[in-house]
């Protein structure tokens, strides 16, 4: 007995020594290549560009979150808030916060003070780009260190939607904002799986793993987010192995070329940015519905999708993007029928054709789509003139209502109300004090949009949204074209830890589940 005991002790000691002398696990560093020249802002309440949105998704949490890999509002789950309840009229909400969540970079525990501060900051137009999302919020208060009360003036399209880890819903740490001031833009502090470590202007941002992350320590130790604006250089850096995750081109050829490499996985995921051609119904000759219908009949969606590439684009299903809460997936879009288009034009008195002027951006993916549309319209006798200007100029001029035809490409929070309100409600008409992006000047579905917002029965709400889409499509406020999906590629050594169907940050979410071999 004693001898066995002694032997066991020796074996055990030997094993322990072996384990102790084994080399420490090599540091797992994920190198990411992004198409940008430099950091814009890591402040989640400010940032509007794709390159910044992607990295913010790795640094912050919201009160609630979309299940990683989805953007379906029906899959919203707890994040910083463990649970919540609301009054019958849905105007008073109480959120119960998780205890023990730590702010990164040593800023202490997250309490309701931080949440209140963060949400108030996100609703302040002087500081936040997304203040209008919080227009319906009357007050935000902390009733105790782990409870937040939100009172609403009226029901917003989706309160939980605004409180997700997206845009204004991202929670920032109060002490960090106060201490860093202007520097917060480059050194933002949140509670997410990765924390800011270092920033080299024009080169990279380095994030390190938050070992105290409340869902568990990330398995990736460091992320180096490299700014490589030249497409060719980025591709070469991927080929040489210097980056493992690359922001792709929304381009069929690129996707096919990357796919052909056996060790590369191409991720194509939502949101699809929907391209609509908005028609200003107050400008001649577009004020005649027959002319607008003719344009709708003349556009060949299938041809456009083929041109863009079926790997990265899909045909539009409605005037709002596919898969949003409330999208009518079988909306009655006008089919491709050039003969009908010509007949309608003749009826309207334009048998000999007509000319329409428009302002168009020089951004290549949008420009080449409009050049194809121009050719399709020419076949039925419509001469669409494209005055091409650079992108910032385009955005400035269309908001001054200077173009009768506006091709706009966008994705929004996946609830029908938001897209419908921003693009097709009379409140949002460009050139007015409450302007957003209603370039068509349409107001025919105002009643349905407003009623849907107040509806308490989800089925009734969906019906009202369906009706709104039907009306707007029939009146041809816009001609929907296609949706461009997000395209990234990664080496097969990177596993996200979940299936990526969609991500509102326009990039994959790297979290505590992601692994790098």
């Amino acid at each position: 007995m004693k001898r066995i005991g002694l032997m066991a002790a020796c074996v055990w000691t030997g094993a322990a020594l072996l384990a102790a002398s084994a080399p420490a696990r090599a540091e797992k560093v994920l190198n990411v290549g992004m198409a940008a020249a430099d950091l814009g802002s890591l402040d989640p309440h400010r940032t509007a560009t794709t390159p910044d949105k992607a990295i913010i998704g790795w640094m912050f949490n919201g009160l609630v979150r979309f299940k990683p890999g989805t953007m379906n509002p029906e899959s919203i789950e707890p994040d910083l808030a463990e649970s919540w309840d609301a009054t019958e009229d849905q105007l008073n909400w109480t959120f119960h916060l998780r205890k023990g969540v730590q702010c990164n970079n040593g800023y202490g525990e997250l309490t309701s003070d931080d949440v209140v501060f963060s949400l108030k900051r996100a609703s302040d137009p002087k500081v936040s780009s997304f203040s209008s999302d919080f227009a319906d919020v009357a007050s935000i208060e902390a009733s105790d260190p782990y409870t937040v009360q939100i009172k609403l003036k009226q029901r917003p399209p989706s309160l939980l939607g605004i409180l997700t880890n997206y845009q204004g819903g991202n929670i920032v740490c109060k002490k960090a904002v106060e201490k860093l001031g202007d520097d917060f833009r480059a050194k933002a502090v949140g509670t997410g799986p990765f924390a800011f470590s270092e920033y080299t202007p024009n080169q990279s941002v380095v994030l390190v793993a938050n070992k105290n992350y409340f869902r568990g320590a990330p398995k990736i130790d460091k992320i180096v987010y490299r700014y490589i604006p030249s497409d060719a250089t980025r591709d070469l850096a991927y080929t040489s192995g210097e980056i493992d995750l690359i922001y792709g081109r929304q381009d069929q050829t690129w996707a096919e070329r990357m796919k052909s490499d056996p060790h590369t996985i191409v991720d194509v995921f939502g949101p699809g940015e929907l391209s609509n051609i908005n028609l200003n119904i107050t400008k001649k000759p577009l004020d005649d519905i027959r002319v607008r219908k003719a344009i709708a009949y003349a556009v060949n969606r299938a041809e456009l999708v083929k041109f863009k590439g079926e790997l990265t684009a899909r045909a539009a299903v409605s005037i709002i993007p596919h898969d949003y809460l409330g999208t009518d997936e079988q909306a009655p879009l006008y089919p491709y029928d050039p003969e009908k288009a010509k007949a309608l034009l003749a009826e309207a008195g334009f048998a000999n054709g007509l000319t329409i002027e428009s302002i168009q951006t020089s951004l290549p993916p949008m420009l080449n789509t409009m050049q194809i549309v121009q050719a399709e319209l020419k076949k039925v006798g419509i001469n669409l003139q494209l005055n091409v200007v650079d992108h910032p100029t385009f955005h400035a001029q269309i908001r001054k209502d200077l173009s009768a035809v506006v091709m706009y490409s966008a994705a929004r929070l996946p609830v029908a109300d938001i897209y419908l309100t921003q693009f097709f409600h009379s409140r949002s008409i460009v050139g007015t004090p409450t302007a957003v992006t209603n370039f068509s000047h349409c107001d025919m579905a105002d009643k349905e949009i407003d009623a849907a917002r107040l509806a308490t029965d989800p089925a009734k709400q969906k019906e009202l949204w369906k009706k709104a889409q039907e009306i707007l499509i029939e009146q041809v406020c816009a001609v929907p074209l296609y949706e461009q999906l997000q395209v990234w590629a990664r080496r097969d050594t990177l596993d996200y830890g979940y299936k990526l169907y969609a991500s509102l940050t326009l990039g994959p979410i790297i979290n505590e589940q992601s692994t790098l071999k």
Partner: protein
Amino acid sequence: MLTYVVKRLLVAVPTLLAVLTVVFFFVRIAPGDPAFIILGDQASPQALAALRHELGLDQPMIAQYADFMTMVLSGDLGSSLVTHQSVWGEVAKVLPYTIELTIAALAIGTVLGLPLGVVAARRRNETIDYVARFLSLLGLSFPAFVSAILLLLAFAIELRWFPVISEARANDPMSRLSALVLPALNLGLIMVAYVMRVARSSMLGVLGEDYIRTARSKGVPARMVIWRHALRNALIPVVTVVGLYLGVLIGNSVLTEIVFNRPGLGKLIVNSLNQRDYTTLEGLMVIYAFFIVIANLLTDLAYGLVDPRVKRQ
């Protein structure tokens, strides 16, 4: 000579102020709203108005100009509309990279181009002349970004002598040097083409002169004729080209900077343009104009070195 330099620099000041004024107005007349670009397309009109007010963009043009000129004349170039960092600070960060790239490219261009041009002139219409002229045509026709990508393919992917993304760390001279090689080669080789052509034609002109014939008939060794007598006279047009190109290089290196992912003045200018970052653009234009003035001054002084007749004036 010191008075000459000082006089030239003083004369440059009104030029710079004029440049500043022109840039100020042109840049603000161009359509495009910086507030919109900074905040993105989902910002509310109130947020946009608040930012425009904060940046002083809602003031009348003349008031903005007056504010701006007062600031500049007190030595402050202001801060970026986008990053709120001081403009001079941002420029100072990238300036060393631009200067070292320009000097390196210039060095490669002259050190390789000059002898090549001289040899091509000496052995006119022989093989080496044709080869040199063909290569120079190639160098002139290649767009900088195409040659940059080819260099990357050859040296970074195939030979693996350099990484694709060279991180030039400010405190590490070795990394700075290794990050400089390919971009300098890219710009330098294009410059070789120019310098070689000018040197060749200038040399050919000089070689036909009387004093060359005299030197040869006097029995001066061929080597001395070329390098001592002919070259100094042939250098004048070369100095002009190099001087002009110096100004061009600082701004035109932007394509090389983008492909090689190098910080630089050119890239800063293009980015500020796209973002409608008015203050950074104005500051950059002034600094750029200042460099052109310096480049012209250096060129004129170089004439003095090459041509004794100029020095005497």
